[in-house]
């Protein structure tokens, strides 16, 4: 799978809330990688057994697919997508 960090790949921000169990973050990161995205930035806050994660990811695949795969994780309570922070070059010129 090509997860090359091309500057042409769009970036997106995602916020995710999940239970703070063992390997919670690894689980999240692995899904992002396997489903074809690369993490550019990550901020994590913990409170009362809950992790709040803000992710900026880059990739050319469908973001809704990434969302549905993240939502499938048993410990994930919520995934919110924001609009792309950088649209793909192709669509800018289209």
């Amino acid at each position, binding site marked *: 799978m090509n997860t090359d960090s091309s500057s042409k790949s769009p970036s997106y921000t995602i916020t995710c809330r999940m239970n703070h169990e*063992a*390997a919670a973050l690894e689980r999240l990161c*692995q899904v992002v990688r*396997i489903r074809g995205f690369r993490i550019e930035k990550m901020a994590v806050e913990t409170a009362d057994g809950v992790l709040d994660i803000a992710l900026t990811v880059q990739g050319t695949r*469908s973001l809704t*697919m990434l969302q549905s*795969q993240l939502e*499938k994780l*048993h410990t994930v309570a919520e995934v919110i997508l924001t609009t792309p922070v950088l649209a793909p070059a192709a669509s800018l010129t289209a």
Partner: protein
Amino acid sequence: MNGAQHILEAFHRHNIQTVFGYPGGCIMPLYDALVDDVRVEHVLCRHEQGCALAADGYARASGRLGVCIATSGPGATNLITGVANAHRDSIPMLVITGQVPSALIGTDAFQETDVLGMTLGIVKHSYLVESADELPGILDGAMKLAQSGRPGPVWIDIPKDVLLTETTIAPITTPAPPPTACPDLTGAIALLRAARKPLLYSGGGISLAHSEDRFREFSECSELPAVVTLKGIGNPGKYSTHNLGMLGMHGSRAANRAVDECDLLLVIGARLDDRATGKLDGFAPNARTIHIDADAAEFNKLRNSELAIRGDLNAILDELTRALRETPLAINDWRKQCQTWRTTGGFQAADNEEPLAPITGPAFIRQLSRVAPDDTIIACDVGQHQMWVAQHYQFDHPRHHLTSGGLGTMGFGLPAAIGAQFADRQSTVLNVTGDGSFMMNAQELATIRRYSLPVKLIIMDNQCLGMVRQQQELFYNNRESQINLDDNPDFVAMARAFDIPALKIERTDQVRRGIETILAYNGPMLLHVAIAREGNVWPIVKPGGSNKEMIDETRRSAADKKERVA
């Protein structure tokens, strides 16, 4: 009650009577507790991979939770292929491993591996238990999670000290969640009614939802022409006249043709896998899609649907049946067309009448299908024999056909057959395997012997890795590479070394008697079937190619001749 006793108590509360495992250092407290517990039957396999695949076979044949147990380190890593196999085919499984004591985790202790970390991608969920107090809740949750929604393996890694710690927490059994209401199907029914050439496309999800009977009813009532995936084989029963068989790479011409021409695909409990669809660009080019599944993440993953419906297949099938019974679909021309294709484009295999002729794979499987009792469970391995079984054996129920679909695990069949025989002591259980696959878990012959399981083993021996050889022949200019197995051991002698009687056949006139002999024998028996090295699985779609471009033997021969003339 200590942690180990809590595990056994949870088995009891969840009606788990059979588990497959292998002891070792860090899981010893559980094995110690087993000594005093008569409620659980522990099956000792000879390799942890055998334990996991047997638990998988048990779950597939019974529809119940499969359980496997191993120690830390190599015990856990040996489970991985079996658990990945269950994950890819959504098989409900509980995996329990011992871990080094909590204080030693992270110190590179003896037999320590980061089990949680290395298995994240092959489980539905996993836990590292940090205290005995949380164990009862985790056990209850894990068993429910493994079997709910889209099922899958749930792994609990338990440090040895947690197994030994006494806890005052009572065992926990929470009620099962109530069934969900049927989603709105108005749109789906309208699309079905608007279609002129609707096609039912179903997969393993039917069995995962325990919906086989409802599916059969829906199929009979709707009279929709139907295709099935590898895991859907057995639906909607072998007497269905609407079923065009398996689609895809080794599917029937009839099934692939119907997909190509249909104008609506009603996909139920299938994930549009690449072996089924072939090249996506050319797949069902004229069809709109209704996709019904328990897992929303499958929607629009590989093909966009006009309508995606997530829900309990039982409720959905009931509602669809009700609607179509009320007003049947007017698609008789399409039904007739599919019937014609079914007659002319099904799986072909000439039954060789020449008594001294070598045995061919398809003819052998067809004979097996005629002779074996109706309730026979066949656990396949992976390769040409697996496809011949899928193509030529007439299954009447999907739980009679155990096959490693998603992962394609050579070595699956023998332990899966063991699991199936524990799940169903009365039925005939056959492992149909190849000479390559058989050697991947042959140590489990000892398990068959130990428990006197009447499992029958059929090795279709072509002295090579046939499926790889076939693809090298067809797609790599016949450059054979590392597929030769002509130095196989003497399989008959090997079986006898495990005190399992065996016989070998190599001619067509020996087939029927060979099959009847092993089926009639009151105990395990092995049939070594010598088949031609050059036999291929037909038809075939080139990997990555479109299902429209199926290659069959006749066409290949014609192409060969042209090439030679040129």
